[in-house]
C-alpha cells in the first residue's frame, strides 16, 4: 500500500471513529431530543452544525469547480447560497423559533389552520430532500472509489452504515454534535490546500487576498489578469467577466437560489434546536461566519485550480506538454473516466482550446477540480488524504440533516399530526427511527441506481422550495390576514408554473423526448433557464395568494393573535423543550 493510501485510510477512518464516539455519547431519549436536540444547543455549537448541514457535497466538491470553469458567472452560486441564508436568518428563523414547533409543515399547518396546507408542504419537503440526498450519496460513493480505490457500491454501503449509526441512534442530538465535528473536518480540509496553493502562486497565504495579488514568479502580473489572458488566448471567455446566460438570467438564477435556499426545510429545522429567539439570531450570525470561511475561499480555489490546470497543459504559450509526459494526477483521473484526452491532430501534444474541433481535452469533469487540486499543485500526501475526509464529512453531514427532515415530516407531521394523532411519544420516537432507516435504504438505493434525471432534479428541488415553501412562510409571518385558501392556491400555482416550465424544457418527469418545447435556449421565457425559474414561480405564488385572499374572508382572529404572539418579544416561548 502506498503512502497516500495509508494517510487516506487514517484520515477517513479516524474521522468515522470520532463520529461513532459522538453518536454513542449523544443518544436521543425523547422526541424533543430526536427532532430538536432538546432545544439545548449553544449558539456557537449550533452555528457550526448549521454550517456543516448547509454545506453539502455540492458546496465542497462542485462549487469551486463550477467557478473554475464559469469564472464570473459562477458568482450566482456564491451570492445565491449565502444571500439566501441572510433571508432565512432575518425573515424566517426568529419567528418560527418563537412559534416553537418542531417542523416546517407543522408551522405552515398551524398558521394556515389547514391540514391540506400541511400535506402540500410535506410533499414538497420530501421531494426536495430526497433529490438532495441522491447527490450526497453519489458524493460519498465517488470519494470512496477515487481515494480508497474500493468499489463505488462498497463506498456507498460504508457511508450508509455510518449515517445509520449516528442519525438513527442520536436523532437531532446525535446529528448536531456529529455535525460540529464534521464542520471542523471539512473546513480544515478545504482551507489547508487553498493556503498552500495561494502561497505557492502568489506568496500570500490568505487565499482571499492571494486571489487579488500578483504572481510570485517575479513578473509583477496580477493572477487574475494572467488568468484572463491565458484563457482568452485559447478562445475561452474572459474569466472575470464571462456571464452565465444573459444578465437577466443571472439575476433570476441568483434570486431563485436565494429564496430556494431560504426555503430548504432541513436548515430551517436547525433553528428549532436553540433555547431562545435571541440564541436563534446569534446562531445565525455564527453560522454565516463558518459558511463564509468556505465561501470566500472557494473563488480562490476555483481560479487557482483553473490557473494550475492551464499552466500544466501549456507551461508557456505554444509550448504544450507531450501527452506521454503528463503528470501522475492526469493518469489517475483518466482512469476514472472523468478526464479524457484524444489526440486529434496526432502531434502527441495536448491542446486545450475552446474550439470543439481542435480541443483535445474532450472531457474535463468540473467536479474533479477540488479533489484533484492538491495533486495538481504537488501538495504533500497528507493534504490529499485530508481532502478525502473533508468531502465525506460534507456529504454525510448534509445527508443526515436531510434524513432527519424527511423522517420528521413523515412520523411527526403525517402520522402524529394527521393520521394517528393519539400516538404516544415512545411510539413516535420509534416510528421516527424506523422511517429514518427506510429513508437511508431508499437513498442508498437511489445512490446505487441513480435515476437518469438526477442532474435535472436539482432544478426541481430549488424550484419547489423557492416557489412553494418560501412564499408560504413569508406570507405566514409578514401578513396577519393571509388565509388558508390564499396560501394553498398560491403554493399550488407557484409549484405548477415552475414544474410546467422545468418539465417542458427538460421532459415530463425528466423522461427524454417528452419535452415539448425542447431544451433550446431560444424557447426560454425571457432567456431564463429552467434552473433559474423558481423566482418566477415565487412571484406567481405571491400574486395568486393575494388575489384569492381579496375574494375570500381573511384569517380568523385567533390566527391573527397567533401571528402577533410569534412577532412579539413577550410571552411564553412555546417550547421545543420538554420541561
Amino acid at each position: 500500500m502506498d503512502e497516500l493510501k495509508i494517510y487516506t485510510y487514517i484520515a477517513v477512518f479516524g474521522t468515522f471513529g470520532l463520529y461513532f464516539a459522538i453518536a454513542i455519547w449523544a443518544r436521543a431519549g425523547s422526541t424533543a431530543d430526536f427532532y430538536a436536540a432538546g432545544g439545548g444547543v449553544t449558539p456557537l455549537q449550533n452555528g457550526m452544525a448549521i454550517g456543516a448541514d448547509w454545506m453539502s457535497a455540492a458546496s465542497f466538491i462542485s462549487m469551486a469547480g463550477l467557478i473554475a470553469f464559469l469564472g464570473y458567472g459562477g458568482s450566482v452560486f456564491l451570492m445565491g447560497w449565502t444571500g439566501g441564508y441572510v433571508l432565512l436568518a432575518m425573515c424566517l428563523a426568529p419567528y418560527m423559533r418563537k412559534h416553537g414547533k418542531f417542523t416546517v409543515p407543522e408551522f405552515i399547518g398551524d398558521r394556515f389552520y389547514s391540514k391540506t396546507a400541511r400535506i402540500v408542504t410535506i410533499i414538497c419537503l420530501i421531494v426536495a430532500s430526497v433529490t438532495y440526498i441522491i447527490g450526497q450519496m453519489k458524493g460519498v460513493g465517488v470519494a470512496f472509489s477515487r481515494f480508497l480505490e474500493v468499489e463505488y457500491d462498497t463506498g456507498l454501503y460504508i457511508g450508509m452504515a455510518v449515517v445509520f449509526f449516528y442519525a438513527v441512534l442520536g436523532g437531532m442530538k446525535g446529528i448536531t454534535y456529529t455535525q460540529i465535528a464534521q464542520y471542523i473536518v471539512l473546513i480544515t480540509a478545504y482551507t489547508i490546500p487553498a493556503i498552500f496553493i495561494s502561497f505557492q502562486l502568489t506568496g500570500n497565504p490568505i487565499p482571499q487576498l492571494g486571489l487579488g495579488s500578483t504572481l510570485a514568479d517575479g513578473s509583477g502580473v496580477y493572477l487574475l489578469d494572467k488568468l484572463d489572458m491565458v484563457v482568452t488566448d485559447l478562445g475561452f471567455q474572459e474569466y472575470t467577466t464571462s456571464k452565465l446566460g444573459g444578465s437577466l438570467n443571472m439575476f433570476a438564477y441568483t434570486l431563485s437560489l436565494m429564496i430556494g435556499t431560504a426555503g430548504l426545510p432541513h436548515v430551517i429545522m436547525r433553528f428549532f434546536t436553540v433555547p431562545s429567539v435571541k440564541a436563534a439570531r446569534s446562531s445565525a450570525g455564527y453560522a454565516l461566519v463558518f459558511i463564509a470561511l468556505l465561501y470566500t475561499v472557494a473563488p480562490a480555489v476555483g481560479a487557482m485550480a483553473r490557473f494550475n490546470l492551464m499552466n500544466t497543459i501549456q507551461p508557456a504559450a505554444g509550448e504544450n506538454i507531450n501527452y506521454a509526459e503528463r503528470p501522475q494526477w492526469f493518469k489517475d483521473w483518466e482512469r476514472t473516466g472523468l478526464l479524457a484526452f484524444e489526440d486529434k491532430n496526432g502531434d502527441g501534444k495536448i491542446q486545450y482550446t475552446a474550439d470543439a474541433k481542435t480541443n483535445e481535452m474532450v472531457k474535463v469533469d468540473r467536479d474533479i477540480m477540488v479533489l484533484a487540486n492538491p495533486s495538481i499543485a504537488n501538495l504533500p500526501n497528507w493534504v490529499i488524504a485530508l481532502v478525502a475526509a473533508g468531502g465525506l464529512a460534507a456529504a454525510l453531514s448534509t445527508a443526515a440533516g436531510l434524513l432527519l427532515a424527511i423522517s420528521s415530516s413523515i412520523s411527526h407531521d403525517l402520522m402524529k399530526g394527521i393520521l394517528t394523532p393519539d400516538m404516544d411519544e415512545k411510539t413516535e420516537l420509534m416510528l421516527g427511527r424506523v422511517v429514518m432507516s427506510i429513508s437511508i435504504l431508499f437513498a442508498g438505493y437511489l445512490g446505487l441506481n441513480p435515476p437518469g434525471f438526477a442532474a435535472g432534479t436539482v432544478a426541481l428541488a430549488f424550484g419547489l422550495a423557492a416557489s412553494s415553501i418560501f412564499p408560504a412562510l413569508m406570507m405566514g409571518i409578514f401578513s396577519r390576514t393571509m388565509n388558508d385558501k390564499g396560501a394553498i392556491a398560491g403554493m399550488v400555482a407557484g409549484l405548477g408554473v415552475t414544474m410546467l416550465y422545468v418539465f417542458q424544457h427538460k421532459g415530463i418527469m425528466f423522461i427524454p423526448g417528452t419535452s415539448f418545447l425542447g431544451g433550446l435556449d431560444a424557447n426560454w421565457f425571457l432567456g431564463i433557464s429552467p434552473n433559474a425559474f423558481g423566482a418566477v414561480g415565487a412571484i406567481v405564488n405571491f400574486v395568486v395568494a393575494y388575489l384569492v385572499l381579496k375574494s375570500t374572508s381573511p384569517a380568523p382572529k385567533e390566527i391573527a393573535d397567533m401571528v402577533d404572539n410569534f412577532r412579539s418579544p413577550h410571552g411564553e416561548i412555546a417550547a421545543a423543550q420538554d420541561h
Partner: protein
Amino acid sequence: MENSSYWQENLRVIKICLVIWFIVSFGCGLLFVDILNTIQIGGYKLGFWFAQQGSIYTFLALIFWYGKKMNDLDKKYDSGE
C-alpha cells in the same frame, strides 16, 4: 400597542438590511458590474470582487448588525425571555 410599535421598529431594521443586501449583491455584483469593473483594486476588478467576495463580507456584517439591533429592541421593550 407596545407590541405593534416593536413590530414597526423590527420591520424598519429588516428593511434597512434588505436594501443593503440587495445593493451589494444584485446591484454591485450583477446590475452595475460592468461599470464597477472599470475600477481596479489590487488584482480585483471591483464588480467581480463584489460578486465573489464583497457581497459575502457585507452579508456577515448585516447579520451581526441585525442581531445587535434586535437585542437592543428586545431590551427596550423589556422582553422577559
